[in-house]
């Protein structure tokens, strides 16, 4: 009896499920797709679009049916531990991947260095690269605060804004050069990092996130309303372009960069210079972070992320540890901000909205918190992805969101979730996150 009945109940369950799916889809899309509002004289008119609704519901039900037939057909337990790929091949892949990974860093660096001189490189690609590098730098900077110290900062863009406005205002009022203002912008931003740090010393997690979010908005709104100082919504324009290390500028004619170095004038020179400038700044951020991680202060940041009470019980002053993380992260945002200002030549509060903070945070989280390489991959994927999908502008956010959800399902700890230990006795061993999560971290 039971054996005959089992497939029947399964079938019935499937049909019930499909009907439920159809009803839910109808309710959702019936309103969202099925009813279209048109403007007519005197108000709005509803135009029903039943065909489109039926199509969408059909697609949803079909998709659900496929899940039933293919995906959920597999019995639990069967295939849980096995994969389609033989274990030996998989190990071989892992081996190759590790080797490739070792080569990837120098290869990427060399590519980044020669990129502007490659034949296919044009103005568009250079501009895009500069944008990606800016976000990589911001990602690396935020990684100090979020990835290493574990302090969730939703207002990182505030420091970026402080850096940008510092340079713009100092250059406009005092006529100071970019090379003098760059460190000043970093110092001012880290000063604001400390100012933010003080009130949030006792906060962690969600509460900290809310306060930093508010701080980011406060900075933006102050910039928007302090008209005589910041230009308000009009922004600041005519920000000086950087010159070639204070020696020559990039303008056409005698005394310019091209003239001095005996080159033919090209408007690309300045862009290439900007490219190398942000590349150098980003690499500086990376270098300093990697060095700091090996120093007591970097270890203290990571320990703070792991357990604040344990930190204090070991005699670490968590106040200075937190403030130093905020200040260091903010400093790099300040550098990036100064660069942004000089590159754009014009800044306004619109460039420093919460979306920017969220984007930088998304880069850090997607890349795998604390991972430097992950930030690079995530920045290229997100910023580059935005550009690739520029033609489908209306679907851009949809695909972006979908990608985020998928990555968080497959790699919940980010793309690169392994963590390189900072000290070793004897041989250096890499610790894969996959191994660690299964309790065999060696």
């Amino acid at each position: 009896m039971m054996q005959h009945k089992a497939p029947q109940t399964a079938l019935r369950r499937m049909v019930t499920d499909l009907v439920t799916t159809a009803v839910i889809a109808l309710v959702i899309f019936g309103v969202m797709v099925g009813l279209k509002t048109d403007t007519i004289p005197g108000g709005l008119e509803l135009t029903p679009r039943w065909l489109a609704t039926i199509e969408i519901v059909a697609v949803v039900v079909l998709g659900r049916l496929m899940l039933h037939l293919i995906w959920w057909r597999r019995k639990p337990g069967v295939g849980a531990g096995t994969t389609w790929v033989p274990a030996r091949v998989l190990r071989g892949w892992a081996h190759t991947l590790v080797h490739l990974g070792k080569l990837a860093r120098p290869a990427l660096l060399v590519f980044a260095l020669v990129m502007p001189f490659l034949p296919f490189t044009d103005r568009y690609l250079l501009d895009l690269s500069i944008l990606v590098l800016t976000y990589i730098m911001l990602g690396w900077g935020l990684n100090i605060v979020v990835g290493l110290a574990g302090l969730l900062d939703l207002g990182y863009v505030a420091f970026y804004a402080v850096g940008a406005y510092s340079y713009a205002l100092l250059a406009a009022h005092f006529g100071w050069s970019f090379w003098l203002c760059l460190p000043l912008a970093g110092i001012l931003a880290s000063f604001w990092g400390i100012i933010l740090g003080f009130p949030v010393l006792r906060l962690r997690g969600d509460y900290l996130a809310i306060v930093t979010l508010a701080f980011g908005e406060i900075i933006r709104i102050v910039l928007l309303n302090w008209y005589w100082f910041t230009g308000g919504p009009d922004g600041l324009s005519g920000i000086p372009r950087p010159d070639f290390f204070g020696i020559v500028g990039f303008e056409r004619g005698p005394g310019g960069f091209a003239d001095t170095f005996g080159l033919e004038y090209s408007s690309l020179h300045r862009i290439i210079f900007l490219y190398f400038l942000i590349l150098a700044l980003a690499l500086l951020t990376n270098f300093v972070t990697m060095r700091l991680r090996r120093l007591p202060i970097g270890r203290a940041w990571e320990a703070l992320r792991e357990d604040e009470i344990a930190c204090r019980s070991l005699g670490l002053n968590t106040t200075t540890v937190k403030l130093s993380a905020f200040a260091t992260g903010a400093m790099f945002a300040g550098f990036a901000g100064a660069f942004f200002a000089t590159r754009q030549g014009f800044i306004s509060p619109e460039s420093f909205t919460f979306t920017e903070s969220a984007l930088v945070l998304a880069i850090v989280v997607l890349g795998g918190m604390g991972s430097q390489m992950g930030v690079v991959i995530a920045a290229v994927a997100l910023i580059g992805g935005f550009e690739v999908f520029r033609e489908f502008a209306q679907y851009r956010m949809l695909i972006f969101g979908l990608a985020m959800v998928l990555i968080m399902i497959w790699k919940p700890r980010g793309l690169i979730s392994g963590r390189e230990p900072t000290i070793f006795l004897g041989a250096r061993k890499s610790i894969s996150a996959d191994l660690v999560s299964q309790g065999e971290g060696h």
Partner: protein
Amino acid sequence: MSAAPLLAVSEVETFYGKIQALRGVSLEVFDGEIVTLIGANGAGKSTLMMTICGTPQARNGQIVYNGADITRLPTHQIMQLGIAQSPEGRRIFGRMTVMENLRIGASVTDPAYFDEDLERVFALFPLLKERQNQRGGTLSGGEQQMLAIARALMARPRLLLLDEPSLGLAPLVIRQIFSAIQELNEQQGLTVFLVEQNAHHALRLAHRGYVMVNGKITMSGTGIELLARPEIRAAYLEGGAH
């Protein structure tokens, strides 16, 4: 004992908001002793431990360490005076390796001592040496407890505070940990203040013991004396000895 105690807690009262957790606790720990504080869940043992470390600070009373009043010092300064703590629940840094955990433990000491201290804790807990490049979170409970104690020892303490080192561990591992504590005390002269629920083991190990009930010390004496007391046997030992 005639000398001044290394740690003297007198009439300490600690509050969590309006709730009073410690109701005038006084105890003393002399140089070179192992002193244990036993009591049931919620008696205030860990609160006393935390109060000694300054988180939370005592509202009334005084804590004197090595002749200096530390009642109002911030935690990180207290921990730089030669007091080290292995906190309740171990609280090791899970994503960092054993070595990195030990490095952070040595934050307050001169780096010149690091290698020497490292050798000493590895001699005490050879397992940690094998697992030095492994992440803290992947260690077993017993290994994590060893790491927590080792991490505290890296601070070269004169007084070691241990908060329930036997919590959630197998009897064999508990014995290992307790013999390590004894070794530290006998061979290196380390003073140990041990908070425990495992009264049987703690009292056998300790020179002296205190019993805490509802935020008050109700009994004190040598470990053996307390072990023999019928009320202790009834409250903490019957069925609990292993």
